[in-house]
């Protein structure tokens, strides 16, 4: 006990000496740094949203743009750290380290070196998305996207990245010999056959890098542990850069089936060797593909015990005009199905919803190919007699395949050539999806756009493009959350606002059109991730478009046509996809390192420097801490400055003090009138709080249990953090406000910016606590959360904590939302006491609506 106490004492001493050492910053200096910091904060966020906007596909940008924007961001974030460091010397120095780490990763990307998450050579499929294509090749990327974005089942496995290939073929001691052979061959001094043979010998004799081998073995072992002792075999497949996209390379590179775990590395080497097969060399030479462009990644997938396998062409390439999907399937493995050595059933399905089955061609299937796990080879087996003449796919399986086929085509913006299998448990497993090779001529025949003007334009040039692309479908209007539960597949969603609630149906819909919305809000981000064509701010789409109406959304040219114009879709197929352009992928990779926000909740355990993974995290962290530093400094450590805030004159008993960062000195003797507040957001908020019938003054009875609970709570709170006992406080500048309120033992924080550029604007709202016991407090939190969701906030709720965010709206709309928040804060102030049962949540939700209706928003605007 005694020892513990002396340890504690030492700890206190340590902390005290640290505090003493810290340089004291004068309040004026503090203010100055804070103002600069907010300025840099806005600049950084502007750059991030600027970059995000360029990912819509609507813009033409180049490498120069990427370079200048990232450099500007480096500077701005660095200066933010500097200003925070100046406000609280020595307290946040670690930020520099995390900043440097993220910055050097981005710089590597800019130099053209792809950063591979965790490790050097291997990425599991669970971590692969489209921006990693340069590291894992087309085939692996497509599978990763199908799994991680579209939730399609794929085999377990991993990719050995192009870094392995570069290490072996370019950087190792054999690299020079290989490039020498290649240059001899390019000068026609040796034949393709000789070149291929020589390279093969060199690679065969080469010992694979030790770290590559151990990474591969680690990942195999991970899969082994999951399979729990069952036989484990792999398919080892080539996944070359550019393979499956503009050039088909079909069958040029090697793939192996039924590879036992211990053979995977040898087969990997074989695939690498096949990069230089005679055929591959010739193929590339004939198509002017430079040898330096070639990089081979390899996919290792756990073998599936196939019951039924097949291929889907989402557009019949031989009869494009018929506009149908073809599925060919047979029992067992599908490996030789395309070659025609095994009989297969064929199913023809209409491409237009509801996807009627047009025809079936069921054949006699006496044999099937299967993998013999004993001899480790593919053998021909008999199909049981009674099954031979039966269709190998059920109707529900056909439906499932069509749904997945259309989904993949929609995402990759091109008809797909898909390989699938059904495993022993009848689960669908996607083995491969790639661009269907269609002769350009055939597509062009189908794309006569001269009739385009004969289609009626319902909307033209009215909106803002969030995500490019063409989509056809029936209009489905969403006005309530119930409508959202019944969204039909492949419709075009038409709504008043771009509410984050819509994100949950994104996979079902073909396109989105809204009356108003934010190009950088949550839904916009999700639409880009899922590549769903989307236009916002059309003003009146919900009025013009009718439920069930057939329309074509051309979100590339910002037009909505009446009727289905399939030619436009076909035209899109023929175009190069901007997502596949190198610079676009680079920008997307960089965006991933700057934009995602992991530090969402400042009260959460993970809100710490070491969890800053992106620049946005760092920016968010600094912003939060800067405001805290300002508040703490002002009230608890520096008595000299406690007078520099102003008290506000209000018609309700809200004791609110204001620190106006635009003023150098403040006259603390007088009270400030609401009309003289320089910050618009604070003005709107207070107008909301003070509006009629909102601030209930009824005395509220608290039962004994609640009272006791509040007693405990208050103590705990006060002990935990001195700020909670403190003042109601607002830190403001013209378009900015940070409002902290402690009303009836709950804590509300609003941080908001409302300026002329919608991209910079945001509202961050946080609420927790209360006087009553947990359930009642949670009910109030639920009520608040319901109201915020209806107001289009991205809302998270955990017990009695509600965190809500909104961004990218024009100033007027942000201010309107803040006004509503004012009403909400006033209205729910003491409500936890009244939340005796769940029914109260609905009841008070309704009451809130009534109050909102009563308050004429426009009236308030005039008052200001």
């Amino acid at each position, binding site marked *: 006990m005694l020892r513990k106490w002396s340890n504690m004492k030492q700890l206190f001493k340590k902390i005290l000496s640290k505090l003493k050492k810290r340089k004291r910053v004068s309040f004026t200096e503090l203010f100055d740094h804070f103002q600069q910091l907010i300025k840099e904060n806005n600049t950084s966020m502007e750059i991030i949203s600027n970059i995000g906007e*360029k990912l819509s596909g*609507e*813009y*033409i*940008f*180049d*490498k*120069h*743009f990427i370079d*200048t924007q990232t450099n500007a961001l480096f500077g701005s974030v660095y200066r933010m750290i500097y200003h925070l460091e100046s406000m609280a010397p020595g307290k946040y120095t670690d930020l520099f380290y995390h900043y440097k780490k993220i910055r050097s990763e981005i710089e590597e990307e800019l130099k053209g070196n792809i950063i591979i998450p965790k490790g050097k050579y291997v990425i599991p499929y669970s971590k692969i998305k489209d921006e990693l294509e340069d590291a894992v090749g087309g085939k692996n990327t497509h599978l990763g996207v199908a799994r991680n974005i579209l939730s399609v089942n794929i085999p377990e496995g991993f990719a050995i990245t192009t870094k392995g290939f570069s290490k072996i073929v370019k950087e190792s001691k054999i690299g020079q010999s290989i490039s020498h052979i290649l240059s001899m061959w390019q000068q026609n001094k040796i034949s393709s056959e000789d070149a291929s043979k020589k390279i093969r010998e060199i690679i065969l004799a080469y010992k694979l890098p030790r770290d590559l081998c151990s990474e591969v073995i680690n990942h195999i072992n991970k899969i082994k542990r999951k399979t729990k002792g069952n036989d484990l075999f792999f398919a080892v497949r080539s996944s070359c850069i550019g393979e499956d996209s503009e050039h088909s390379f079909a069958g040029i590179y090697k793939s192996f089936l039924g590879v036992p775990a211990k053979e995977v590395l040898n087969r990997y080497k074989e695939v690498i060797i096949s990069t230089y097969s005679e055929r591959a060399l010739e193929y590339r030479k004939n198509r002017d593909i430079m040898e330096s462009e070639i990089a081979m990644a390899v996919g290792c997938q756990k073998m599936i015990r196939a019951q039924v396998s097949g291929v889907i062409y989402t557009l019949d390439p031989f009869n494009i005009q018929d506009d149908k999907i073809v599925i060919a399937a047979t029992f067992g493995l599908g490996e030789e199905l395309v070659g025609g050595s095994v009989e297969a059933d064929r199913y023809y399905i209409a491409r237009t919803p509801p996807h009627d089955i047009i025809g079936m061609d069921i054949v006699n299937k006496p044999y099937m190919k299967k993998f013999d796990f004993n001899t480790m080879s593919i053998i021909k087996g008999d199909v049981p007699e009674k099954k031979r003449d039966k269709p190998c796919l059920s109707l529900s399986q056909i439906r499932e395949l069509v749904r997945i086929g259309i989904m993949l085509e929609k995402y990759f913006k091109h008809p797909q050539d898909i390989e699938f299998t059904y495993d022993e448990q009848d689960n669908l497993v996607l083995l491969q999806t790639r661009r269907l090779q269609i002769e350009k001529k055939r597509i062009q025949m189908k794309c006569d*756009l001269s009739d385009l003007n004969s289609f009626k334009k319902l909307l033209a*040039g009215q909106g803002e493009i969030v995500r490019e692309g063409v989509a056809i479908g029936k209009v489905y209007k969403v006005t309530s959350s119930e409508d959202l539960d019944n969204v039909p597949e492949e419709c075009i969603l038409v709504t008043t606002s771009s509410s984050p609630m819509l994100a949950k149906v994104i996979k079902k819909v073909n396109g989105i059109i809204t009356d108003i919305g934010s190009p950088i809000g949550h839904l916009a981000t999700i639409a880009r991730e899922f590549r769903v064509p989307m236009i916002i701010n059309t003003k009146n789409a919900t009025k013009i478009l009718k439920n069930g109406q057939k329309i074509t959304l051309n979100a*590339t*040219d*910002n037009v909505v046509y009446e009727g289905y114009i399939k030619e436009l879709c076909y*035209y899109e197929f023929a*175009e*190069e996809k*901007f997502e596949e*352009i*190198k*610079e*676009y992928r680079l920008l997307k990779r960089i965006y991933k390192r700057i934009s995602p926000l992991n530090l969402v909740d400042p009260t959460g355990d993970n809100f710490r420097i070491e969890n800053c993974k992106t620049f946005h995290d760092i920016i968010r962290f600094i912003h939060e801490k800067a405001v805290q530093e300002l508040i703490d400094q002002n009230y608890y450590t520096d008595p000299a400055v406690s007078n520099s805030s102003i008290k506000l004159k209000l018609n309700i008993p809200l004791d609110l003090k204001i620190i106006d960062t635009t003023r150098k000195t403040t006259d603390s003797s007088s009270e400030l009138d609401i009309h003289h507040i320089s910050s618009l957001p604070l003005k709107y908020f207070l107008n909301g709080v003070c509006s009629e019938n909102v601030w209930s003054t009824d005395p509220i009875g608290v039962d004994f249990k609640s009272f006791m609970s509040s007693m405990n709570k208050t103590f705990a709170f006060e002990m935990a953090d001195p700020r909670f006992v403190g003042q109601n406080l607002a830190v403001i500048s013209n378009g900015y406000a940070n409002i902290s309120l402690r009303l009836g033992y709950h804590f509300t924080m609003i941080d908001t910016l409302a300026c002329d550029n919608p991209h910079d604007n945001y509202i961050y709202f946080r609420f927790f606590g209360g006087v009553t016991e947990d359930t009642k407090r949670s009910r109030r939190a639920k009520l608040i959360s319901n109201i915020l969701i209806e107001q289009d906030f991205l809302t998270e709720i955990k017990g009695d904590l509600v965190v809500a965010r909104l961004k990218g709206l024009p100033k007027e709309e942000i201010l309107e939302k803040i006004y509503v928040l004012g009403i909400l804060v006033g209205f729910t102030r003491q409500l936890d006491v009244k939340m005796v049962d769940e029914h109260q949540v609905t009841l008070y939700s309704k009451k809130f609506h009534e109050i909102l209706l009563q308050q004429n928003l426009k009236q308030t605007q005039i008052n200001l």
Partner: protein
Amino acid sequence: MDNTQISILILDDEPIVTKRLKPSLQKKGYLVETFTKSIDAINRFKEKPFDIVITDLKMEGMDGMEFLTQVKEMRPETEVIVITGFATMDTAKESFQKGVLDFLAKPFKLSEIHEAVAKAEKKILDQKE
């Protein structure tokens, strides 16, 4: 193809720009050729006059300003649209003095280049009448 089809030459040393502009303008019905080297572009222009030229300013070798000067000297009726990532008042001024019709700072929206091209097309057709 009828002979009234407007022809466009695009010159930008970053392939992403030409790659994206070409299909988007073709879809609008224009005849489009693209170049990433100014020397190839000027040689082609000597062979075949284009109605509209879209060019970047800063490039290796002959820069865009010199290229457009030569274009305007050879064929004054060709309308030139400048696209640049280094937009300054001076370069804009100089471009307009040389008879450039429009000046777009990169990055720009596809709709903006469509508008600029439509403006050029209208001017060309008006002059033909």
